[in-house]
């Protein structure tokens, strides 16, 4: 509803400041002070909620003369418009606009995420098994470093779950067969060789995968709420727990040694890398 802020100001400040004391409608169609104040009470509450209080004064005129609808040409500085804006935003203040999909008309909204990276050849379960056989031979020949390098140089980046899990088992088998005293010098040798940094990144990926797997295995029985209100995961059946605990301790000690050699950068690379094992 267009209105002149000067009229509003006049009406709001009361009858003394009214320029036209005769009671006849002034040029801007402002009602006399008495009628304004009485009519304000009769404005429906819903309309008063939607608009600023200054505007309700204007609305209070039931049938304004047609000429009053045209706004004056030269508007004085809008000191009162601020309050109108504030009233509107506080009424409409919600987070609903955050859920608007502003990309809904964008033709490039959805794209094939696989186009972002070069393709990696798929590894089949049979290849993983063949590698496992070779690694086992190296282990029997006491060449643990060769075995470790062998399985780290051929990670399964693209393959089905069976292939991925089979390769994880191969890596874990190698890790468990290496003595604690041999870990550090072996890792340093691998790190300083050609492509060694990459190898340790792969090792780190398998360490995390191994930890994730054993964590999934651990809670065999569901949580049992106890009378005290506490709940205990897994209860006391430690038979399977012990073996995963042992596996976890191997992984943790390897993790510590890998971070010592390859630094925190290695962990960052595992987290950012799009090639998952």
């Amino acid at each position: 509803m267009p209105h002149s802020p000067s009229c509003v100001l006049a009406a709001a400040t009361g009858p003394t400041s009214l320029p036209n004391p005769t009671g006849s409608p002034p040029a801007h169609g402002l009602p006399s002070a008495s009628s304004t104040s009485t009519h304000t009470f009769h404005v429906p509450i819903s309309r008063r909620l939607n608009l600023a209080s200054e505007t309700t004064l204007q609305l209070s005129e039931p049938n304004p003369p047609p000429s009053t609808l045209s706004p004056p040409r030269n508007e004085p500085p809008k000191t009162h418009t601020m309050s109108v804006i504030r009233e509107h935003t506080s009424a409409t203040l919600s987070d609903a606009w955050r859920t608007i999909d502003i990309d809904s008309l964008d033709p490039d909204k959805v794209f094939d995420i696989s186009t972002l990276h070069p393709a990696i050849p798929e590894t089949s379960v049979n290849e993983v098994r063949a590698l496992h056989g070779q690694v086992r031979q190296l282990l029997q020949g006491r060449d643990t470093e060769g075995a470790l390098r062998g399985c780290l140089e051929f990670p399964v980046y693209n393959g089905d779950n069976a292939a991925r899990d089979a390769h994880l088992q191969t890596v874990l088998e190698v890790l468990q067969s290496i003595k604690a005293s041999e870990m550090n010098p072996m890792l340093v040798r691998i790190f300083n060789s050609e492509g060694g940094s990459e190898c340790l990144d792969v090792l780190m990926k398998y360490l995390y995968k191994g930890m994730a797997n054993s964590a999934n295995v651990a809670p065999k029985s569901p949580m049992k709420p106890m009378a005290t209100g506490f709940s205990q995961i897994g209860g006391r059946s430690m038979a399977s727990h012990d073996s995963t605990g042992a596996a976890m301790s191997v992984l943790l000690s390897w993790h510590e040694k890998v971070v010592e050699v390859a630094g925190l950068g290695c962990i960052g690379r595992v987290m950012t890398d799009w090639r998952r094992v």
Partner: protein
Amino acid sequence: MASPEVHHLFHHPIADHSFSADRKTLAVAKDSNVEIYGKVANSFKLKAQLKDHDKTVTSVDIAPKSGRIVSCSQDRNAIVWEPSPEGYKPALVLLRVNRAATFVRWSPSETKFAVGSGDRVIAICYFEEENDWWVSKHLKKPIRSTITTVAWHPNSVLLAAGSADAHARVFSSFIKGVDSRPPPGVWGERLPFNTVCGEYLNNSAGWIHAVSFSPSGDALAFAAHDSSVTVVYPSGPDQAPKAILAVSTQLLPFMSLIWSNESEIIAAGYDCEAFKFHGSEAGWGLVGTVEAKGRPGLGDAREESALNMFKQMDLKGKVKDDTQLKTVHQNTISTIREYESSGGNVTKFSSSGVDGRVVIWSL
């Protein structure tokens, strides 16, 4: 090596900083304001606050010759601040992006600037005389995610951009009537707008934090979130590059990098200190830190009396005070920039970070 010049401006993150050409004025992005500091004797004093942005200011850049400041913010706007005797006068930029503006840099010619945004576009902005405002043209293809950083080639036409889709790309931002045709080079011969001159991805493909052209413009370096710095030597248009050399480090990721000359890169980031890389087309490697380690002061030379020990035990529950890092910056370094150079070698550079410090380092 001279000790670094430390200016602790406030206890608040500095998203970006920029010095004027005479190094007497410093603009920093703090919160939703750009603050202008002037050099008084040996310290910087707050001179002005530019307050037109209403969300976090992400980047600020002072053009060396004209003294114009450009800033961009998460409120999706960029503003050019024209210096005048009464202060800085803001000028509108029509960015036309509907996500945060993340990074802004003037081209060396100072007739254009590039604004990266979360809207998967780079807005190349130039001044349109007839309408008296800055308009933009968008580099759009083939960007797949937020642009995190941009860097200009010395010819003011080529632009390198790093993105959260893990690619560093080199674009042509040639604008008719603004740029003169660049001579053909290793990046390409004909360079119409939005020509993709190179698109690079390193092995583990972290999102890119920083890109930079070498001083000659014939090599590109980028740092990614996988703690790596990768250097690319292109061999010519439509050919595979001569060499892509990735250095994966044991450190935390680098947020910013500059070339100090053709064979040395300075990079700094989450490790709160700057590192030097040396190399050539044959290979690159990490050399070491810029900062001299084991500096006196900073808790090391603290009195080691029994009284002090028990006092520390009582106050903090431990003997050693380990609340301070051994580096000058006490938090992540977010930007490093060239400060002084002679004969094609950067001799001093400045760094700013999350700890509210601006530090000037001698190489």
